[in-house]
């Protein structure tokens, strides 16, 4: 009797039409191992079947792009013979089910994507979204995710230099854990995954294969419900120590000349790595699964192929060089096994106990995975609100309250659990606009940021998509970096619902437009769909990770006010947009309103102006204006520098609360000597860039006209929310 009942097909997440395609490709009924392989290869997670059509519209090219999407990570040229390799990836579902291991293995996976290509990882970042602080699970999840990220990153010895973290009830059942790794490699020593050379050995290195993580990719491609916690066994367990050894062993091996191709085993483990290598090389592979190092006895071919055990790599070596490679892996005490050979059959032939247990054509599986043009509808845009309809509170009172809210509070409780200084090159620590790591041994640096404002994306996915890219670009600009390229992590709900698909389509359109306008190509990315629990979707969250270069280390600034008696300037126009703002939500009690519009030409003009001021050493501090608006940015600069500021209300027709807390885009706050400031204002006027002096640094309070609040009081408000929240009782 056939093993392949309709039930079995359904459990493997394949639709009827997909199974028909399987039968067509195979010309026969598949066995269970083969069906399992189809299932993971065609999962949303591995195949991008819902998003592919739209992802193709993103700009991916620029003169400095060495390798765009399609490889393990994106590669850009940063000059001096160096390449920067980076990517962001989600580990959302596993982190919700088992937060420590889910987040830890998310970090491990993204690290491998980067060092697989020959880069030594130099920095990690993460973008986290949790449910409402009031939700029973939130504290447990924050605690587990943060210690998981730290537990892994700290041990492998890669600094975690920044990230973002916010809270919203829409994530109550689906938190987001997006991890990013940035690495550096010689530009002429990049390693790719296309197999080559019939007869060359296929080698497995790293940890042993166990039964953990089977069907992780399929789980990541389905909605959640009450039973999801039963999927805990599908979450993998991380071993950062082995990862550290794997990094060192791979770096050592990559310095020799024996690797033809290399690919990490990520989602769908040995299946996707072997298929991808073979498919890209137009070859076949014959593998003897008995040779795979195994942690447990009695593993079936199905289990071996679908295991998502961590810290494993697959590579093709040049013939006769196996001993060189083996000696290196022996030194680092890692498994090394020749598990197969490249063939010209374009088939994957798997043997177990001397018998062929699967025989699959490679290209139809790897390339002909379904691509859907899913139906979508234009998202309903949130209607604008009048700022006057939002409750007005005295600015300093509102400020103190805002700094004590989940989204605007200091995230020190999180980043102090991450080693952000190991490797000895962190020059811009967490808490600024971007993390900055020096290129080891050089006088230049990488600036790295992650950004997204999901409340804007919810109000208007198109503007929200634009804004995520623009804010990432602004963050890099604010430290003095030339923004170079983007990695995206698209987190959405169920794409089979037309309104969710509409969010995806419009957000990608917005992102693409911003990337074009800002010369900011997308070089890598990841898609995470089905982020829904019991039919309730998350806010659309197209997280953007971005990298820029600081050409001279001394041509950069931080956010901290450094000197008393300096002028404080705002660059960019303030129009008092309170729709979908943090002020409106936290003070006004409404999430209503349209998203602020991003004028990309203005964004570019203002940013280029600010960057030139920074790189010519004319400003002493810079901070972009984002969530919370102008007064929050100024307060953050004062708190970071431990130096007060005296502000005067601008003569403006805007309501006071709209002026200070509106979230208009393309704005920066600068500090400069009064002489410099006067010159900057003139130059800005000549260039047609709105600029205004709003205050002077000095003292130990934040003063606004006659009102004032001690800096210490603001610091206390800013620093206390998260530790206080986390010291509450944990419920699971």
């Amino acid at each position, binding site marked *: 009797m056939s093993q392949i009942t309709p039930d079995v097909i359904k459990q493997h997440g394949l639709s009827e039409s997909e199974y028909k395609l399987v039968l067509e490709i195979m010309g026969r009924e598949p066995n269970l191992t083969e069906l399992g392989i189809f299932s993971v290869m065609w999962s949303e997670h591995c195949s991008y079947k819902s998003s592919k059509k739209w992802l193709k519209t993103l700009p991916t090219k620029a003169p400095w792009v060495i390798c765009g999407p399609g490889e393990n990570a994106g590669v850009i040229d940063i000059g001096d013979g160096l390449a920067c390799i980076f990517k962001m990836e989600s580990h959302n579902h596993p982190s919700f089910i088992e937060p420590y291991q889910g987040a830890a293995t998310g970090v491990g996976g993204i690290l491998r994507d980067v060092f697989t290509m020959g880069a030594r990882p130099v920095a990690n970042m993460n973008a986290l979204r949790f449910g409402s602080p009031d939700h029973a699970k939130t504290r447990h999840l924050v605690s587990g995710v943060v*210690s998981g990220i*730290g*537990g892994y990153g*700290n*041990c*492998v*010895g890669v600094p975690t230099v920044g990230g973002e973290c916010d809270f919203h009830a829409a994530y109550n059942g689906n938190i987001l854990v997006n991890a990013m790794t940035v690495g550096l490699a010689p530009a002429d020593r990049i390693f790719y995954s296309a197999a080559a050379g019939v007869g060359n050995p296929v080698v497995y290195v790293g940890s042993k294969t166990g039964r953990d993580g089977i069907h992780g990719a399929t789980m990541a491609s389905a909605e959640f419900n009450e039973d999801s916690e039963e999927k805990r066994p599908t979450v993998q367990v991380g*071993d*950062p*120590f*082995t990862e*550290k*050894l794997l990094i060192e062993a791979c770096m050592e091996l990559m310095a020799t000349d024996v690797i033809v191709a290399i690919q990490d085993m990520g989602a769908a483990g040995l299946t996707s790595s072997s298929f991808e290598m073979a498919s890209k090389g137009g070859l076949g592979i014959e593998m003897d699964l008995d040779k795979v190092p195994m942690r447990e006895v009695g593993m079936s071919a199905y289990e071996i192929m679908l295991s998502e055990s961590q810290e494993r790599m697959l590579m093709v070596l040049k013939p006769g060089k196996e001993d060189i490679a083996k000696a290196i892996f022996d030194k*680092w*005490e890692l498994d090394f096994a020749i598990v197969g050979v490249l063939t010209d059959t374009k088939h994957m032939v798997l043997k177990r106990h001397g018998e062929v247990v699967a025989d699959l054509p490679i290209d139809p599986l790897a390339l002909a995975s379904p691509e859907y043009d899913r139906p979508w509808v234009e998202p309903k845009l949130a209607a604008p609100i009048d700022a006057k309809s939002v409750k007005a509170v005295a600015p300093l009172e509102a400020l103190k309250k805002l700094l004590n809210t989940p989204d605007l509070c200091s995230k020190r409780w999180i*980043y*102090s*659990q*991450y*080693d*952000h*200084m*190991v*490797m*000895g*090159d*962190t*020059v811009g*620590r967490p808490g600024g606009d971007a993390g900055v790591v*020096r290129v080891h041994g050089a006088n230049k640096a990488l600036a790295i940021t992650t950004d997204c404002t999901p409340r804007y994306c919810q109000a208007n996915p198109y503007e929200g998509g634009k804004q995520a890219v623009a804010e990432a670009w602004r963050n890099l600009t604010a430290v003095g970096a030339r923004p170079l390229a983007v990695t995206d992590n698209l987190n959405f709900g169920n794409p089979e619902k037309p309104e969710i698909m509409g969010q995806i389509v419009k957000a990608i359109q917005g992102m693409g437009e911003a990337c074009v306008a800002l010369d900011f190509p997308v070089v890598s990315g990841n898609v995470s769909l089905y982020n829904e629990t019991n039919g309730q979707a998350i806010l659309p969250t197209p997280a953007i990770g971005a990298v820029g270069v600081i050409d001279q*280390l001394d041509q950069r600034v931080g956010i901290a006010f450094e000197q008393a008696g300096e002028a404080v300037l705002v660059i960019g126009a303030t129009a008092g947009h309170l729709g979908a703002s943090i002020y409106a939500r936290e003070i006004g009690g409404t999430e209503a309103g349209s998203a602020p519009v991003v004028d990309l030409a203005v964004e570019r003009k203002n940013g280029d102006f600010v960057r030139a001021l920074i790189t010519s050493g004319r400003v002493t501090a810079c901070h972009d204006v984002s969530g919370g608006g102008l007064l929050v940015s100024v307060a953050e600069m004062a708190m970071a520098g431990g130096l007060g500021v005296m502000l005067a209300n601008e003569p403006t027709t805007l309501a006071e609360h709209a002026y200070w807390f509106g979230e208009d885009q393309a704005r920066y706050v600068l500090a400069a000597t009064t002489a410099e400031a006067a010159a900057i204002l003139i130059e800005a006027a000549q260039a047609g860039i709105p600029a205004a002096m709003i205050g002077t640094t000095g003292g130990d309070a934040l003063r606004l006209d006659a009102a004032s609040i001690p800096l210490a009081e603001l610091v206390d408000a800013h620093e206390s929310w998260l530790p206080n929240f986390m010291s509450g009782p944990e419920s699971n």
Partner: protein
Amino acid sequence: MKAAVIVFPGSNCDRDVAVSLEAVTGAKPLMAWHRDTELPRLDLIVVPGGFSYGDYLRSGAMAAHSPIMQEVKRRAEAGVHVLGICNGFQILTEAGLLPGVLMRNRGLKFCCKDVHLTVSRNDTAFASKYRKGQVIRIPIAHADGNFFASPDMLSRIEDEGQVAFRYCDEEGNLTDSANPNGSLNNIAGVYNMQGNVLGLMPHPERLAEAELGGTDGRPMFDSLLEALK
């Protein structure tokens, strides 16, 4: 000054401290592998930070029994200077070269931040370039830095003047809130009786150049260079 840095599987501050050593000596230190059983003639051995062998057992417990540590013990007993930073401090206590133990931080969490330290003595090869009582700013990054010793051992450490550094506030006060991990008597680092072995949880190599935001770690390497040439 001829220096070696011990590299265990899982060490991750080995390169960082090598950079600091090279900055003062102008020469790359020897990187000694954990399986090595002998070291050449040298003046300084650094046991660096990291997670030796993963530290899945008690931090430093496995490394203390590695082949190279037998040689480090012999050299320390022969008077060679040994500096253990972070995981290196944990390893030196586990190996019996330094008194006390390093327990899980009292907050139970990994903690990475700048802390202030007072310099308890400056009559050693490690600290001559500091003033006695000077307040310096150095980062920590550890989960197991909570220094503990039995009451007898603690009073001996204090009586013999073995304390190297203590956690303090910006003004040098030894307050409880300036103690990041719960260490007894705010102890951040200790010497052996002879003063040729120092272990400390803070990372002097992480603030040893201005670009990184501070230089208070640099005098330790300058001191060693002067003492050991």
